[in-house]
């Protein structure tokens, strides 16, 4: 009998405490700094071109094969503005297949892809979340603005290596 009474007291005491709910659509739980949302492409605002060179490393290592990338010659390199010889022509990530594992970020040599904080991407049709280069870069710029993202130094070096 005592156990029952104890239980009643526990529920009563927690009734008097503050609820822990987040009223979801109105208020969001704060996102942690390291939160891994869907991968997006980064924008090099100094030269105004994407970091991505379309080297296909992420495509090869993706466990679910959710990406495709195509490379082209960089017109800005010909003008001498950019160090990148090659640049991404088209890039597509199917967020419907992406499992947000972060392997693409690990393998990328150019710091071009990053796990953003994007996570609320529900759409009405199945393939509406196939994101092309423009959308990815747009999301990437949003991520760059939200956080003070900087390319890693070793990536800079490898970039120089690749372009030289």
């Amino acid at each position, binding site marked *: *009998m*005592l*156990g*029952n009474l*104890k*239980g009643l*007291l*526990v*529920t009563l005491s*927690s009734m008097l405490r503050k609820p*822990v709910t987040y009223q979801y659509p109105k208020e969001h*739980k704060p996102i*942690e*700094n*390291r*939160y*891994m949302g869907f991968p997006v492409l980064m924008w090099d605002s100094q030269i105004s071109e994407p970091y991505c060179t379309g080297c296909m490393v992420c495509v090869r*290592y993706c*466990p679910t094969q959710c990406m495709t990338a195509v490379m082209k010659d960089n017109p800005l390199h010909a003008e001498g503005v950019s160090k990148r010889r090659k640049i991404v022509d088209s890039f597509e990530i199917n967020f419907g297949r992406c*499992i*947000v*594992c*972060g*392997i693409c970020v*690990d*393998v990328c040599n150019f710091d071009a892809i990053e*796990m953003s904080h994007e996570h609320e991407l529900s759409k009405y049709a199945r393939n509406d979340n196939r994101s092309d280069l423009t959308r990815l870069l747009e999301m990437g710029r949003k991520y760059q603005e939200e956080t003070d993202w900087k390319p890693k130094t070793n990536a800079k070096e490898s970039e120089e290596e690749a372009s030289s």
Partner: protein
Amino acid sequence: MVDQDINKKLDTVQMMVNMGPQHPSTHGVFRMVLAVDGERIVDVEPHIGYLHRGSEKLCEGEIYVQIVTLFDRLDYLSNLNNEMVFCRAVEKLMELEIPERAEYIRVILCELNRVASHLLFIGTFGLDVGAMTPSMYMFRDREKIQSMFEAVTGARMMHNYIRIGGIKNDVPDDFIHRMKSLIVELKKGLEEADKLLSFNEIFLARTKNIGTMSAKMAIEYGVSGPSLRASGVPIDIRKDHPYSIYDRFDFGIPIGEIGDCWDRYYVRLEEVRQSISIMEQALYQLPDGDTITPTRFLLRPPKGEVYVRGENPRGEIGVYMISDGTDKPYRVKVRPPSFCNLMTIKDLLIDTYVADAVVILGSLDIVLGEVDR
């Protein structure tokens, strides 16, 4: 004559009740066909395989780094423990040295994951028995753990954080501070569950002496983890064959007495306390240093085969891996703890009531993602 007629009219048949795969308390897509005589269960036929994704076959076509993500999805309530056991298998084969700090962080996070898993068990077990409040309290506490994971690994469930050779990146700066306050909150929440459920007379009546599993039966079936220890068999891989740095911590193994549902429940509750104690010790001892031994991304472990055991929240997980020297394993086979624990369901259920079936199944704490792989 009359008697015979009566007998004829009173001829009874057993009722076949199909429980699952869409029953609310089969914990996933488990299905059992019960033959019941009134409320009493006469026969059980368990069916699994509704979540079979062929993970082991998939492993043969993926490189080692990618397999870690597959292991995340086996037992989706204790992802880090799964990752750890696979990474240990590869590390053992390659004879990699893991930095001290990485080991500590691994252990802290794995124990935290164990706590999260057990909290979920306590909550859902309460639901199975019919109390709806414990699940809410436990989810409240588990949510804090998930936030902690989010802060450390970047993901709430599918972390891909433990890597071959160490961990993905170092913990954030305020990790120790946050962990300490988290532990205090967890302790409080656990006490609440303990008071609310453990010694409630109705709960005792529902779980005491229900689904008793003897030690002999448990060993015969290869039951492991808390379900085995509830039967009074003190087997814990962390103690018997200490892996990682578990031999550095002072912790006990909770042992049940007769192996009924209540023992299985309380062993898990007690295990949370032990895990919290391990975390406290590990946080105290946490050294500085590197967090990963650099390896090539395209790993090629030497030829050979290896069997690695680890203690998951649900029991003993084992990974049997054969490497043929290429970048993909030749064969990966997982010993899924839930799979072995679930095998006993037929023996446990016979001659109990329909209401007990739910409780017994709940007390085994299965995860169908792991049973079906």
